[in-house]
């Protein structure tokens, strides 16, 4: 049983002639500790796939299983609970709460889940230290650099010890150095800390950090590649595959 299993997933917007198929019978399986990147041209359905995988949106057909639990048919509250406990999110624009410090931001999924503030903050401190922000826990987002803010977002995604981390263009708002650092961090999340990571990106260099890359076009998986190493050569290879699309 994979951590994330997506079967025949489709998403259609609108009706009749104006209907747009964003995702067309996509099936994906991600194992524990696997780092998967999704690439493809704009409008190919990358983000839709991620949103459906995270239970942020409902599919038109098909199903999403997280650690064997089928999200379809679950109430809104139960899906929210799965998001809190089993899924971590990293967004392009960080989406940190500006009035909270880094530690409070990182602790948020636990606090929302009813964990005592002290225990939640303890856990947040642990993960902030692991992402290299041990001494920035008291800083608010506007006192941190973009790269640091995204690290706080990664700590927030991991604080509830989820099985799956979903990252939507996590480097889209970072400079190249911070982007590389973040990609390395996500690789660490999968390889060392045993979380499954599904990342949407348009950057071939960043995608090259993944174990496997899915190529999407017009809502379908059109290609797939496994990478055994993660250097510049692999980056070039991914770029070439992308150009072929």
């Amino acid at each position: 049983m994979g951590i994330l299993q997506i079967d025949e997933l489709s998403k259609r917007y609108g009706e009749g002639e104006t209907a747009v198929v964003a995702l067309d019978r996509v099936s994906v399986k991600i194992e524990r500790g696997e780092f998967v990147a999704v690439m493809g041209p704009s409008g190919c359905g990358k983000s839709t796939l991620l949103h459906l995988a995270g239970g942020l949106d409902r599919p038109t057909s098909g199903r999403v299983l997280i650690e064997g639990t089928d999200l379809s048919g679950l109430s809104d509250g139960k899906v929210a609970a799965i998001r809190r406990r089993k899924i971590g999110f990293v967004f392009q624009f960080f989406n940190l709460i500006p009035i909270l410090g880094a530690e409070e931001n990182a602790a948020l999924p636990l606090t929302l889940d009813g964990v005592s503030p002290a225990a939640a903050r303890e856990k947040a401190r642990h993960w902030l230290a692991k992402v290299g922000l041990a001494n920035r826990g008291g800083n608010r987002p506007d006192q941190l650099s973009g790269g640091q803010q995204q690290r706080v977002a990664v700590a927030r995604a991991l604080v509830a010890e989820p099985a799956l981390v979903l990252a939507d263009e996590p480097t889209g708002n970072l400079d190249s150095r911070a982007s590389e650092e973040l990609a390395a961090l996500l690789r660490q999340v999968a390889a060392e800390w045993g979380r499954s990571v599904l990342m949407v990106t348009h950057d071939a260099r960043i995608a090259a950090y993944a174990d496997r890359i899915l190529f999407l076009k017009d809502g379908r998986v059109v290609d797939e590649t496994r990478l055994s190493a993660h250097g510049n050569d692999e980056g070039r290879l991914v770029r070439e595959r992308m150009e072929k699309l």
Partner: protein
Amino acid sequence: MKTAMHLALRYLAGRKLRTALTTLAVVFGVFVFFGMNAVLPSVMATFQHNVQSAWGQVDATITHQSGEAFPASVGAKLSAFPGVRVVSGFLSRPVNLPPSLYPAAKGRRIPSAVSLVGIAPKEAAQIRTYTLEEGRFLTDADAGHAVITASLAHALGLALGSSFALPTPSGMARLAVVGIRPARSSPGNEEVLIPLREAGRLFGSPDRVSALEVNFDTFDATRRESLHAGLRAGLGDEYKIGSPATGTELFATLKLGMYAINLFGLVAMAMGAFIILNTYRTVVAERRRDLGMLRALGADGRTLLAVLLIEGFLQGLAGTLVGLAVGWGFAAALLAGLSGIMESFMHVRTGGPVVSPLLVGITAVLGIGMTLLAAGIPARQALRISPLEALRPVEGKTAASRPGKGFWAGVLLLLFASAAVWNPSAAVSLCGGAAFLLALLLLAPTLVRPITALFGGLLSRTIARDGVGRLAQGQLARQPSRSAVTASTTLLALALLVATGSVMTSITEHFLGMLKATLASDYLLIPPTVSVWASDVGAKPELAEKIRALPEVSLVSTLRFASASLSSRPSMGKELSGDTPVSVLGIDPASFPKVSALRFESGNARLAYPALASGRNLILNGSAASTTKLHPGDRAVLVTARGLREYRVVAIGNDYLNAKLVTAYVSQENLREDFGKIEDVFLQFNLKPGADAARAEMGVRTLLEDYPQFRLTRSQKYLADNLATFYSAFGALYLLFIILAVPSLLALVNTLAIGVFERTRELGMLRAIGATRGQVRLLVLAEAMLLSSLGALLGLAAGGVVGRVLVSNAEHLGFTLEYSFPYVWMLASIAIAVAFGALAAYFPGRRAARMQIVEALRHEG
């Protein structure tokens, strides 16, 4: 300019929801100010009527020099006078009740005559309050119907629906009783009220009246003088114009009401301004990124300022027009609602909304001007930021916590207020009260953090667990100025509620306390006129003796009366500025305190009553003390029928019945010796524990057959009647002040709605990382509760201080009040704040909870 206009129009059309919410804020502001001020003239007129009729007061009575009836058309002429609020004519004539028609009956005292009074029902009800115990009041359409008093009904053995006969010049008239008023307690004949037209027919004087009663629309002394003069000039020598003595407490009440209502208008204006300002600050802050982008594209500051000002102007104009219409509708609906209440309980119809060109002008200036100002000030600040900085995808900066100029101005005002509110000068202490209110408004942004931390902690432990309370608290602390401005509408509304509550509670407690102390006996024997003792025919001590002898009665105490004056002659006592007429009341120092305790301003019961029994000592009431400037220990010379008598003042104390009259209390022994008076004018008695009240009442009624001038009543009933009069005078005000709280609700709803809109992506993120819909709804609710708690806390503080200042200055309006803490009003204010917080959060909370997460995450803000 063309570009600016184009951009402004596209912005307005392109962001419909935002445009609607912002325009709605202008509508609220204008509606609050315009609606309230359009209501005020009618409420003022109703309030004036209310108070005047409760006191049975008219501004002028017109009679013919000959004393005969005169054409009713004179009334129409008077109605046309500017400044005349209402004119009502009546035709009155005494009618003998022949013993053949009404033979003497046991247990009843048949009057020898009654006054048959023809009135115009509608106009008469605008002059006086006609309360009814049973049935209904007259209408113009009535024929053969009458309204009588309970005492006449009792005397003639009549009930609602029964008919009776009266001899008239047109022959015997049969009248059916359609309404029964409370028993008559003033001197003169019992009155039988019938419609004016029917009275004219019965008396053979159609279209004629015996007198016209007139009420003015102003309390201003100079204006009233000129109205009297105008009436005199208009009517000529043929008519007499009587202007009855005006009780100072009546005018004090009217003035107090007028101040309160004017204050109401001002607060409405301030609240309107706050609502508009607050909304625009939010909207301009949201546009930061767009402004940066436009500047990056080459737009200059002036163009962008013009864009915002054009938008502000258009929204101000639209909001003002809609606000005027909604305000008028609100005023009309409110007055229609009030009119129903007034008509049912007070037989008076309130007028429609009064809209003057001045009011429309001020409203337009407020609506458009305030919107331009509200758009311009933050826009200028936003344009100072560099384009690059504005373009950064910052989620929202937290405002600096360092106190600014406003804070220090607030501190200075607070220091001034703390010294000024205790100042004996009314002007200084009132300024102190206003300064305190202003200081809190200025300090509010700095107080946001500590106060929300206090309440946020409380919320986090109760309803807003799981970090939601902390998020809400942080959200408010993030923009303390905006939070403070929003809370300020609640602050103002509740400050006014609590201040009014302080005054109302103090007045009520003061009179109620005095009333209860004065009427502490089980029963009262009331003469025709209470307080105006000189016109009462009393009873010899035998009546009291006979009541005392009843087996059920434990104690009887009486009041005796003599007129005198406190002399200005210096030979024996303190020199006064002139002779002061004084009511001298003789009490029995032993029994009086058991049925009617005085409330002492100076001195005490333990020493004062025994002092009365031991020599020529007297107690002055507050009116006497303030008129004569005499104090305990001073010597006072009374000019009595038997010459000058020197008394020593031993205390200052008040009872309810004589509070308004210059009164001195002496022992009945001294009254007999110095004035030769032994007549009891007012009697009070208590029953023995467990005594049969019905038997006692029957026994006393039998005794009263020889003393028909007295009416037996239970003290509780008399107390209730007095309170009803009191409350009827103030009733409409209570309602108005509660309505004032409504705009603060509207402000909260709007601010929260904009807040939710602005933080769409943030709320979407919360949902994405696992917050449930319930938690998001709770977050909005917690924010609303924190905002209203902030407003409530500051409002209670401001209201408490302003109320204290108003009460301590009431003496300048003719009252001397002790401050009573308005617990009920405070609790009511807290309840209103909590309820409004919850209500305000409902729709924005629902919107936030129902957001589609993916769309929310894509929102650009």
